[in-house]
């Protein structure tokens, strides 16, 4: 650790991993309801379990991004953070809000109350008071990192990271706009959801990857930074108008079918570029960094993001295809692999890189961590395949043959059983990852290693 204030990141990563555990256990529970629909159906209905699964995902990914920013910005800017104290205040607010949201959902407290009750639009269900807390925490965060960068060295990595994080926070403000007109509601809801995951978050992901490759491969900064700009340019040039692939069937004009199809098809480009770039950097790099697990996660993130976000996204993005697949298990398959590849893996990569440094345990050989990579990645891949098959069958029976949703659902039971098995592998991998990060003090060191 070069700068004392980087220690802040340790607590962010710790909190992120705790919420990660909640997220995957929630997923396992939700997956089990698919297999056995009567499982505690009155105590914890599917909608509540799913809210916890998706909200916990978003919260821990953001905690990871915040931690990543607090870790890498001091190194990039070459100075201490503006205020470590404010960073801890920010973390406290976020954790309080998270706990508040979970308790509100689980016990359905203050139903209908404008300030305290659950809001009920997908992914932004947080009660208004939690949303306000998120905004306050975000402002503290932006103040903290922006001042650190402004007073220090400015690099392409910090420029892109800051742009992504500022964009992310500003777009969240649309969560406060909820018109009575469902079509308008949906149109601006995508300003948050799409422009996060297919816009600003890609900037955050690319800058974290660039930082990791710089550290792990020792490739010249000029080259890494030039490619960073090129990659994020392709991400935004395709991603902004790519929003159109959500505007096919919600009451928006028909021209979005062409705008959305063309530009969202191009969204494959940045993910392909990130993958190619990562491998080329590793081949060209002369440094043999001892943290092989971090390298595995970084390359894994770039690769699985290409398949999950790029290939599986393209699979159903053209409007002629999407007309039939929209809102089926195909979407679920894509969603799982895209989030895992792009954002879960990049978070686990930076955590794998930073935690040994933050806890004074580097360098060491993280065999358990690497095992967790294969468990999680294998599990997610299998889950994606079975959901894709389930979605294909569903699309044909429901959208082409016009059969009833509930009858088809019963016929897909075998797929859901296999999905649950895949989910169990992912959960095992996730818990193993957390164990590997926190518990072992000493691990097997290879003969020619350190």
């Amino acid at each position, binding site marked *: 650790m070069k700068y004392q204030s980087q220690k802040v990141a340790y607590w962010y990563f710790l909190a992120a991993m705790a919420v990660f555990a909640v997220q995957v256990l929630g997923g396992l529970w939700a997956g089990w309801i698919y297999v056995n*629909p*009567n499982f505690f*159906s*009155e105590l914890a*209905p*599917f*909608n509540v379990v*799913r*809210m916890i699964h998706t909200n916990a995902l978003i919260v821990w990914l953001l905690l990871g991004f915040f931690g990543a920013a607090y870790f890498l910005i001091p190194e990039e800017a070459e100075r201490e953070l503006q205020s470590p104290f404010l960073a801890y205040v920010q973390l406290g607010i976020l954790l309080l809000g998270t706990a508040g949201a979970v308790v509100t*959902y689980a016990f359905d407290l203050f*139903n*209908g109350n404008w300030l305290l*009750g*659950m*809001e*009920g*639009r*997908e992914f932004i269900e947080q009660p208004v008071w939690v949303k306000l807390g998120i905004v306050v925490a975000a402002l503290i965060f932006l103040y903290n990192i922006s001042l650190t960068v402004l007073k220090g060295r400015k690099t*392409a990595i910090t*420029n892109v990271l800051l742009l992504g994080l500022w964009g992310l926070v500003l777009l969240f403000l649309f969560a406060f706009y909820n018109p*009575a*007109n*469902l*079509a*308008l509601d*949906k*149109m601006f809801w995508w300003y948050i959801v799409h422009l996060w995951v297919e816009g600003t978050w890609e900037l955050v992901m690319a800058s974290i990857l660039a930082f990791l490759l710089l550290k792990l491969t020792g490739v010249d900064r*000029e080259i890494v*930074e*030039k490619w960073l*700009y*090129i990659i994020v*340019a392709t991400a*935004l*040039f395709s991603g*902004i*108008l790519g929003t159109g692939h959500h*505007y096919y*069937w*919600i*009451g*928006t*004009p028909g021209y*979005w*079918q062409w705008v959305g199809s063309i530009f969202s098809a191009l969204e494959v480009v940045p993910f392909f570029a990130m993958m190619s770039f990562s491998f080329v950097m590793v081949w060209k790099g002369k440094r043999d960094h001892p943290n092989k697990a971090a390298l595995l996660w970084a390359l894994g993130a770039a690769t699985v993001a290409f398949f999950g976000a790029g290939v599986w996204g393209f699979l159903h993005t053209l409007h002629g295809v999407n*007309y*039939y697949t*929209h*809102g*089926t298990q195909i*979407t*679920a398959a894509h969603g799982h692999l895209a989030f895992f590849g792009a954002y879960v893996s990049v978070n686990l990569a930076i955590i794998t890189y930073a935690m040994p440094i933050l806890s004074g345990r580097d360098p060491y050989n993280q065999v358990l961590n690497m095992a967790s990579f294969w468990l999680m990645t294998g599990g997610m891949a299998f889950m994606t395949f079975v959901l894709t098959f389930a979605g294909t069958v569903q699309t044909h029976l*429901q*959208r082409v043959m*016009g*059969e*009833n*949703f*509930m009858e088809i659902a*019963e016929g897909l039971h075998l797929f859901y059983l296999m999905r649950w098995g895949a989910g169990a592998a992912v959960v095992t991998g996730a818990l193993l990852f957390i164990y590997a990060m926190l518990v072992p003090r000493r691990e097997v060191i290879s003969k020619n290693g350190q």
Partner: protein
Amino acid sequence: MREVMTKTMARNVFYGGTLFFIAIFLVLSVQSVGHIVKNSTNTATLTEEVELGKRVWERHSCVNCHTILGEGAYFAPELGNVMSRWDVMDDPEGAFDVLKGWMEAQPSGIEGRRQMPQFNLSDEEIKGLAEFFLWVGTIDTQGWPPNDAG
């Protein structure tokens, strides 16, 4: 590549291009809002009852099981076209009656079947919900979904 493009050039392309695409996106957004308000949705029939229905829909987190216009969870049927599936698009009274009967019969308790919770809605709320689904059914969705199964 090094000769073709420098880091500064890449940076300028990124910033300039991003502003260009944001500008196009904003222009199309403004046009789309106009389209929604004037053409694709009926703002005259967007009554207080419909709005109440939307709030009921939200405060019970319906979207985390169902989809509406294809968006939401994929655990329970699409509801954007539920009133046409029930064949009551032109019959608000009938829509209310069918929905009330449905909501009050939950949870079914049938073994092996996905369960919908009992939300204990008042008649006013059920009426609002029915009006909301009827109104959503009138949105011009470019012909989606392909059939009544949703």
